[in-house]
């Protein structure tokens, strides 16, 4: 078994995932009848299947997404079910994948493409920032590009270098893109369906360390609109703002905090661009303290945007400066060292301790 295979089969312990990340599953949503346990990977696969079935203009292509079903199996069995003209393996070239998707979208298709791993989206940077994001604007709205770029992103799976990057700041800094990241199976399904239906290009960041996290969910499911943030846990003392892989960290921190008598509110941003100022603002006005958690490096990162927005808008409601608990300003470290890099619940609580309460 390779490392990746172990992770795929869900054996996170043998794959060397730090325990703080492998434990503390998110509380399952309240449900009336027993629903099947669905992983994020399974939910994404179901969303793709349902989208392909619902609209013949939806096509799925990229590296290894055909018969293999993607290196993370997110496109599992879709090739067999929908055939070579709907789901296919492209030549190995990310700029080519995005660039050809743009032409296809100009002709009425709705491509859902995969960048195999986060750092391998960089060859497509030009196509994404110069064309995908700008086409609507360049043409006064006459050309729309309903393309979803799925990017398995971030660390926590013991990936070797270039397999654990968090590239959200590049994409959120680019006007014209919608950037979202689900943190649980229900959102994974609902948000991917919505992303595919969106007339704007969507960068869909899939937290790969969470692919195998399961919840009891009845599919198909409709959760909140993908551009809205959601309060996952109510609290009164502090607001933790997280997205994708760090939502779990935030929830874990909230539990540890509760043991110490701290009432922590956890907001899952879900959408990084647009930013849901309303939901975040309401939470911060209630708690008067905020901290944002992400895996990406801190300097010039997405957390800086969050901190600035919250400060600008809620300054007079804030009792303390907005904190950032993030990765270090270094290239993502090697697998054996990544646990020291990734923000943990303990690190979140330690950061909160730096405030004067």
């Amino acid at each position, binding site marked *: 078994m390779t490392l990746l295979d172990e992770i795929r089969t869900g054996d996170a312990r043998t794959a060397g995932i730090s325990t703080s990340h492998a434990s503390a599953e998110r509380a399952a949503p309240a449900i009336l009848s027993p629903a099947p346990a669905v992983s994020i990977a399974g939910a994404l696969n179901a969303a793709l299947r349902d989208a392909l079935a619902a609209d013949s203009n939806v*096509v799925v*292509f990229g590296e290894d997404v055909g018969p293999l079903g993607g290196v993370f199996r997110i496109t599992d069995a879709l090739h067999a079910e929908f055939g*070579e*003209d709907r789901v*296919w393996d*492209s*030549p190995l*070239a990310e*700029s*080519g994948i*995005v*660039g*050809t*998707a*743009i*032409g*296809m*979208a*100009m*002709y*009425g*298709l709705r491509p859902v493409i995969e960048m195999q791993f986060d750092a391998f989206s960089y*060859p497509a940077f*030009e*196509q994404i920032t*110069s*064309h995908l994001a*700008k*086409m*609507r*604007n*360049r*043409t*006064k*709205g*006459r*050309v*729309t590009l309903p393309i979803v770029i799925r990017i398995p992103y971030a660390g926590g799976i013991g990936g070797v270098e270039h397999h654990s990057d968090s590239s959200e700041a590049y994409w959120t800094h680019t*006007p*014209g893109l*919608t950037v979202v990241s689900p943190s649980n199976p229900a959102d994974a399904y609902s948000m991917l369906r919505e992303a595919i239906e*969106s*007339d*704007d290009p969507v960068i869909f960041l899939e937290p790969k360390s969470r692919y195998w996290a399961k919840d009891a969910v009845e599919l198909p499911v409709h959760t909140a609109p993908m551009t809205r943030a959601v309060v996952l846990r109510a609290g009164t003392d502090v607001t933790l703002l997280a997205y994708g892989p760090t939502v779990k960290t935030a929830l874990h921190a909230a539990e540890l905090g509760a043991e110490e008598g701290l009432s922590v509110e956890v907001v899952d941003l879900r959408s990084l661009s*647009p*930013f849901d*100022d*309303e939901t975040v603002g309401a939470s911060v006005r209630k708690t008067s303290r905020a901290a944002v958690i992400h895996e990406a490096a801190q300097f010039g990162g997405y957390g800086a945007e969050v901190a600035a927005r919250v400060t600008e808008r809620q300054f007079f409601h804030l009792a303390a400066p907005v904190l950032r608990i993030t990765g270090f300003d270094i290239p993502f470290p090697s697998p054996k060292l990544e646990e020291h890099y990734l923000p943990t619940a303990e690190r979140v609580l330690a950061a909160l301790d730096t405030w004067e309460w």
Partner: protein
Amino acid sequence: MSNDVLVPAPPTLPTHKPIRLIDETGRAVTGTQTAGFRMPDTDTLLSLYRRMVLARRFEAQVTALTRQGRLATYPSALGQEACEIASVAALAQQDWLFPTYRDTIALLTRGVSPVEILSFFRGDWHTGFDPHAHRISPQSTPLATQALHAVGLATAAKLKQDDTVALTFLGDGSTSEGDAHEAFNFASVWQAPVVFVIQNNQYAISVPYSKQSRARTLADRAIGYGMPGYYVDGNDVAAMYAVVTAAVERARAGHGPTLIEGLTYRMEAHTNSDDPTRYRETSETAGWLDHDPIDRVEKHLDRAGALTTAVRASIAAEAEALATATRDAMNETPVLDPLEVFDHVYSAARPALLEQRAFLANELAHTDTREAGAA
């Protein structure tokens, strides 16, 4: 994506003598240099000639307007009319064109109005025309990127079983970009109905072909991608038309992409901010006057007796009318709505953008009041 249509015939290296049908004296070329391509009929040649004359007059006018400061910039295709016009003329109505910043006269030839075209260079809006209405994508500035869009669109058309072909222009310099390679490769693997026309005008801004590539011809590359390649005299509109037409027909019949290199020369500067005397001798440029693409077909048509005084006069009058209309249109000051910049970023309004829009609106309102007060 299935490519079950046809396994392409094994390509062979193109000849290293460019394919020609008409020589500099206007005579029909015979023998191996035609590579079996047939001379277009006189009506077709006359129509190509007419469009080239119009395009040249248009560019002369636009260059003048640029020198007067009415346009921000303009990359002229003077000397490249044969490549541009023959390629567009070979397309059917349903086909798509993927042009670069230099291929403005291709847009003109395909029926885009001067104002819609020039709003890009005047600086009103990035793309002034409706791409769907004309089946022309926005003129691409990032080099070679549009070639992938052409491959994608052609592939989508193939998947929908439409007989649409996409043609894209590339410069010699842009063939060094990774996207050019990716486009050639994707097109061939997917057997996409695409025609790549490389206009080798021998310079990428200041960099000559010798410093761009060591390949004898860029058409040679085709064989490495498993598609046919043709090396054509890009100043011979008859040859360009014959070869591009064959490639378009081939693509439409489901036989996949073709790579065509038109060997030509950029007579003008790269743009008005370029100084070509820093990188090439004026004698070199002057030498190319003997290879002028319009001159050549004009001589040919003259010999055939097709260019009567009346025909010449009518084309000249049409060219003048186009120049005048272009000048008049550009002399009008465009009415731009600064707030529109917020309208076409996303399909649905975004609160944050609405806030920024309101901010600018407020600023504009105050500017107006100040100006009104000052007046």
